[in-house]
């Protein structure tokens, strides 16, 4: 069924990965941190701090992706979504605050709006995969990557390694195919 299809797709991806290594050796930039590390480190610490604030007060490990299903419970009666009814209001609040916090950055530091040049089709199709994968895989970069790794959860570490490797292969293949950005 679906899981078999996915397994086949996964196998194809791994085969593609092997051949990609032969065809297009990744060009590693001479400076691994061309933009320095402070913006990344400070940003990461703040992401952790935001999670920690909620955890200290409530004991909740707030990930970003459950919002997708919990918000769908407002418009769909499917049991997968209805299980999140109890948390859907604060998850909406959490996501709204993420948008607002980023807007504060845009106004104070960025100096206005910024828009991506990545093609809308990459965003849409990639978003569909992200939406399926994060829910099937029990977490995203914040749930597995920040909360799960911070919990030394073996499940999360395996999840992170899996999506990191597959994402690297995918991005390298897309770039090798000449799609920019």
């Amino acid at each position: 069924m679906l899981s078999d299809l996915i397994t086949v797709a996964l196998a194809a991806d791994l085969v593609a990965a092997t051949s990609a290594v032969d065809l297009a050796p990744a060009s590693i930039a001479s400076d691994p941190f061309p933009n320095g590390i402070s913006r990344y480190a400070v940003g990461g610490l703040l992401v952790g701090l935001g999670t920690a604030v909620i955890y200290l007060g409530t004991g909740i490990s707030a990930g970003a992706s459950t919002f997708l299903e919990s918000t769908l419970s407002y418009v769909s009666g499917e049991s997968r979504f209805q299980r999140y009814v109890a948390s859907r209001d604060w998850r909406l609040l959490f996501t709204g605050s993420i948008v607002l916090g980023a807007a504060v950055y845009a106004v104070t530091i960025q100096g206005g709006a910024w828009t991506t040049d990545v093609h809308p089709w990459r965003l849409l199709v990639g978003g569909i995969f992200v939406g399926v994968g994060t829910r099937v895989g029990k977490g995203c970069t914040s749930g597995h990557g920040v909360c799960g790794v911070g919990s030394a959860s073996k499940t999360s570490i395996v999840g992170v390694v899996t999506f990191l490797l597959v994402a690297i292969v995918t991005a390298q293949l897309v770039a090798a195919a000449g799609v920019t950005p």
Partner: protein
Amino acid sequence: MAGSAAQRHPLFAPLVILGGLIFGFGLAYSHMARPEVVLDFLQFEDFGLVFVMFGGAAVTGVTYFLAPRLLGRAVLSGDDFERRLKPFDRNVLVGGAIFGVGWGLSGICPGAAYASVGIGNVTILWAIAGMFIGAYAQGVFRSRSPSDEAAPTSAD
């Protein structure tokens, strides 16, 4: 969990807002709200993302370790402090791989996508629309095949 609204502390909502503000500001500050920067990482042109993920995990790691020892219970809700542990099964691998394809294709993940709206990136609404479509599709499918949830192999 502090799930149901009935017994929530009056400061529950303000705390979630404060946490979300810091979280979103951090994602914007780290440039993760820009898909180009994530793609640069995945293409080995800028390894900064490692500092974002491990910087975040370091803070949560210390918090998860110290909170139960120093505070005992969550300040507002009185709930036990628990680590974020999920049962491992094949879904973690399958879902992680699907997530990886999407992340590698688009350079965007859920939290960063919300933050991207905040920095004025209206184009990112394509990705958010995609995430809802994907989450809806798997939800409908899995709501109708309960066996999908069965038999976790270990409790992490």
